[in-house]
């Protein structure tokens, strides 16, 4: 499947090649973790560049937590290599690795103050109290925590403050790589959105390599330079947020992105793309020679309401079933026979649509993404 099949989107403000030109700081070579006969992590090969914000996304049970625990040294690898800055670290215990992890539970020391939590690794290193305090204050400033929180018990901190303390504690260790195991998953939506952006800003300020685990591709898209989508212990696709969004490799990745329209399609004898559930031929930009059957993926924002059958390359007639307000956008559910379509419009566009109204929906050939599997 070539890039010509994909709809074009914003490439972001980053230099696309910047990451691939940097030397890899962390290399995984057929990394495997087995529990009995079950491979939780199944032969992962991956290079993570220095200074990169790399996110591993996958549903629960995909092995992403096991993977990051191996990288941090809390789980022993069953096979393969973990190479950090050129040296194999498989057998290095967690306390000897120059990496640090922010846990899902944050794992703050409940019997210690904010300051003592942040200074923990410095105390372990034997740095004198005055220097420790200077560093702790610098981190409190960096993470926008008030300085008078230094002596506050972590148990009396709010959710957002605790997140920042956990990050400050990890940064105080001055790790080569920071690992994150879904630290934002238990936070309410609004605060999570704020913290996601803050985390990306801190990534920029510190220039450190961040490896982040989440089950939310949306969260991954906001923060990451590159994303690895994981399923059943394997990396299904690795790419920039834009690549993952506009050119998902298969049905799993495309559906993981959120609401998409997925139509099972196959090639008939005369090399035409047929959707059996519609008994209809669909136009796409190009079909690779090797393609025989798979799915046609159309994002809701690429489907529009049309007046005539000629207004788009592919047009279907359906009934408007429901609408969902999504803030700046409105989503519509359109039923075409047995099939359900999701259509999205910007809110500012005026609408005269009514429930159960018969509508024509359509999309252009270039907006359909063909995926195998």
């Amino acid at each position: 499947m070539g890039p010509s099949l994909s709809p074009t989107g914003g490439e972001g403000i980053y230099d696309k090649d910047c990451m691939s030109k940097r030397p890899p700081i962390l290399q995984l070579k057929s990394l495997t973790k087995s529990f009995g006969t079950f491979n939780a992590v199944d032969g992962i090969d991956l290079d993570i560049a220095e200074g990169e914000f790399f996110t591993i996304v996958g549903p629960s049970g995909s092995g992403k937590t096991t993977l990051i625990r191996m990288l941090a040294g809390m789980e022993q690898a069953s096979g393969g290599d973990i190479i950090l800055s050129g040296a194999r670290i498989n057998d290095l215990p967690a306390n000897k690795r120059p990496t640090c992890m922010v846990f899902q539970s944050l794992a703050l020391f409940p019997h210690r103050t904010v300051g003592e939590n942040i200074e923990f690794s410095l105390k372990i290193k034997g740095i004198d109290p005055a220097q420790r305090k200077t560093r702790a204050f610098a981190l409190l400033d960096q993470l926008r925590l008030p300085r008078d929180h230094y002596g506050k018990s972590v148990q009396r901190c709010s959710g957002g403050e605790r997140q920042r303390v956990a990050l400050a504690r990890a940064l105080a260790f001055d790790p080569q790589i920071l690992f994150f195991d879904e630290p934002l998953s238990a936070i309410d939506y609004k605060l999570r959105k704020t913290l996601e952006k803050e985390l990306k800003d801190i990534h920029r300020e510190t220039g450190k390599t961040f490896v982040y685990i989440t089950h939310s591709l949306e969260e991954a898209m906001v923060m990451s330079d590159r994303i690895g989508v994981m399923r059943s212990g394997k990396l299904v696709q690795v790419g920039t947020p834009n690549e993952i969004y506009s050119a998902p490799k298969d049905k799993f990745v495309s559906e993981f992105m959120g609401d998409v329209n997925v139509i099972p399609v196959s090639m008939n004898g005369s090399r035409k793309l047929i959707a059996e559930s519609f008994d209809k031929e669909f136009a796409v930009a190009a079909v690779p020679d090797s393609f025989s059957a798979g799915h046609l993926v159309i994002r809701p924002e690429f489907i529009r309401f049309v007046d005539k059958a000629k207004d788009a390359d592919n047009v279907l007639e359906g009934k408007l079933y429901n609408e969902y307000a999504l803030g700046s956008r409105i989503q519509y559910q359109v039923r075409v026979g047995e099939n359900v379509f999701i259509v999205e419009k910007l809110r500012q566009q005026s609408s005269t649509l009514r429930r159960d109204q018969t509508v024509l929906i359509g999309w252009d050939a270039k907006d359909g993404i063909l995926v195998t599997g």
Partner: protein
Amino acid sequence: MAALHETGRGLSQGARNALPLLLFLLIGFAAPLIAVVAYSFMPARSFGLIHPPTLENYAEVFTGNSYISFTWSLLFAAITVFILALICYPIAYGLARVFGRWSPILTLLFTIPLFVSENVRLYGWILFFIKNGVLLGTLKSWFGIEPESWLFTRGIVLLGMVYVYLPFMLFPMTLGVSMVPNETREAARDLGATRWQVFREVDLPLSMPGIMIGLLLTFVLAVGAIAEAKVLGGQTIIPITHDIEIAFTYAQNWPLGAALAVLLMLVVGTLVILVLKRFDLDAILGRR
């Protein structure tokens, strides 16, 4: 019910619900305590509570040699608690974190002896240690060596106390250790701490509530120990509880026994309060 409460007549719902328990506590707990305190102020060898109060019993305690028994009791309780803490922490750690599916079975094994009377178990130890008994008899017939029996020594009294009070230290400690979140331990290790530093900085402080409850519980029980000294010790040491028992029974001097009991309660109570003040459990856990 609600109407009664609203008009303010009679007791509130909560107070009325608590009434049976309050009465029970009053009759079962407060009344005997008050009786003991009252007797301690009665003239020596009297059996009523209608005499004018006197301090002569306390005078006798302080001029006599009861302090020796007090010292034995407190010393042996302290040593017992110390040994138990050393023995139980590793076992508690194992039960909470290492033994996995074997933990319930081991816990059961530690619990089963509690179903047998303490005296019966202590006589079991006598059979084990007595001349020509399980230990010495075996040594004699198999190896031909005949060491002195350890029975009726201070060491055996200590062994008996450690044995009897072990579960009371072990179970609160196990609870304490299992309260430490594993991720907190891993976080400390991840931040560069060695195993020993993780123990000192995370395990020990976070399991302190369980440890403190174990220490206090076993100390209070061990100060009141009497059977170990009697059965295994054969009067090598006389604990204060023995003095109290003698005063109430053989000497028929209830007021003296009562005075000794009140003093013991005061000493133990003060120690417990001091320890609880020093180690505020909430403060340990950072809840304040």
